[in-house]
């Protein structure tokens, strides 16, 4: 049976009660790396974004340290997310059922699961988060390197357009705006993970309960069940 809704490594671990492996160890570590980077970037970035928050630089050992740390962590995040992206982009491609699900956001919030379509590994919200993050990280990375003062001579030599002051002004504005959106997404992501009970263990233990999978990602569960039913017993 071909995988449509699941990733390699996704499997039903136990059957009574049902637990389903959702993220492999590597992915989980990488996710938390990205999360940690995001938090560092968010805190250090906010310090530069707004004077009342400049005190946050103390967390990193002062303004100058924060200034060099921020872009370095940004690069780590970029690559960390790149791995996630490569792993997950296919499953995050929009499908017809996503439209219906999105239309019924009210039911999602109200907990009327019965009215919602069956979904694969990710719902439309998660997909939006994924593509949003991806886009914003690209925007932040590009604008970020443009305003990375210590690298300016490099751009001046190899990509003078990037080094021009008007371009850098725009980059600063883009960086700030993208960061703002990123923060909003981040809040949503964290909140959704907390509000949707049983979600966080997917990124901690790597597994979810069968009920969680049944409730939120039934097509995914079906596919896994189908694949494992069809295959040899373990």
């Amino acid at each position, binding site marked *: 049976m071909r995988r449509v809704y699941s990733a390699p490594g996704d499997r039903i671990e136990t059957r009574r009660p*049902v637990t389903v492996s959702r993220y492999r160890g590597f992915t989980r570590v990488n996710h938390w790396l990205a999360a940690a980077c995001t938090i560092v970037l968010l805190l250090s970035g906010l310090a530069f974004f707004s*004077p009342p928050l400049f005190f946050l630089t103390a967390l990193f050992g002062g303004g*100058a340290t924060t200034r060099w740390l921020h872009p370095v962590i940004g690069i780590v995040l970029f690559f960390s997310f790149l791995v996630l992206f490569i792993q997950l982009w296919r499953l995050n491609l929009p499908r017809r059922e996503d439209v219906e699900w999105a239309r019924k956001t009210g039911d999602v919030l109200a907990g009327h699961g019965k009215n919602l379509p069956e979904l694969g590994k990710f719902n439309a919200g998660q997909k939006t988060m994924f593509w949003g993050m991806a886009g914003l990280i690209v925007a932040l990375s590009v604008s970020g390197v443009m305003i990375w003062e210590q690298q300016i001579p490099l751009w001046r030599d190899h990509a003078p357009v990037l080094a021009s002051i008007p371009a850098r002004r725009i980059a600063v504005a883009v960086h700030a705006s993208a960061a703002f959106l990123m923060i909003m997404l981040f809040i949503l992501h964290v909140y959704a993970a907390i*509000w949707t009970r049983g979600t966080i263990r997917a990124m901690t233990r790597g597994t979810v*309960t069968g009920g969680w*999978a049944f409730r939120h990602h039934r097509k995914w569960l079906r596919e896994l069940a189908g694949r494992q039913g069809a295959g040899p017993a373990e």
Partner: protein
Amino acid sequence: MTERARQPVTAAANPPVSPLDSNLLPSDVVQASAISNTPMPDRLLDSVAKLIDVSKCIGCKACQSACIEWNDTYPEIEENVGVYENPHDLTPDMFTLMRFSEYENPESGDLEWLIRKDGCMHCADPGCLKACPAPGAIVQYSNGIVDFISDNCIGCGYCVTGCPFNIPRISRTAQVSKKCTLCSDRVAVGQGPACAKACPTQAITFGTKESQIALADERIADLKSRGYENAGLYDPQGVGGTHVMYVLHHADQPSLYSGLPDDPRISPVVAGWKGPAKTAGLAMIGLAVAGSVLHGIFAKPNAVSEEEEREAEDLVGDSRKEV
């Protein structure tokens, strides 16, 4: 207790060698970067200005020499690239630079060698200060001097994007932003800037802004009498006026002088994101956090029911037939 230094009124004076109390005090700061509520100082110093009379300037670079010597900087010895500008641009170690342009005046048919001393303009409304995220890294004193306080600078380069005149340069070694201080250390003991003191033809003068405008008026009248009908003062109001001003023969075309901005102002991009957008953004982030918390407290969590667990077992079981 030593005597307090006077406020400077000219650059043509000999510096003191006995200790004097500084007369440019932390309490004279009227604006500091990333600090919104700088208290009103108890006194206001006279506004000072450096006037650069381009029509008297011979491009000798004495200002550059004096600047290097006074500030103990070590610019690199570069190569000749076919121009008179050396170094080729402002650097973290070269706070001022003579820029040369050869202009053929279409009206008179004469060649004019327009030479301009480039450097910090000490804007009344400093874009660098506005853009700077590091508290107290850029300060403005009540006499108009905009000074970079390296101890507070984080070397991020936002001042570079904030400056309408392309002045600050980030030191690759010290990782701090550098520019002309208007010799704040000299002004503090009643002296004018080193460049103005040195300038052989007194094309650079220094004093109260009022006195320098009066001097400029005299010079402009002289230039007009010599046929420069558009002679005028460059004190651009787009940045609230500057504490470094030029007398130009062609004040109608400042850009003739190696790209002096015709109408400099803080870029709307910078002004925008450093202004209301920033507050609005922070407010929305706050709202989002608050909304989530409230939703979390008051709304029913999206929890999985026992029934769903069983259905999952069924589903898994169905597909497997046998366990």
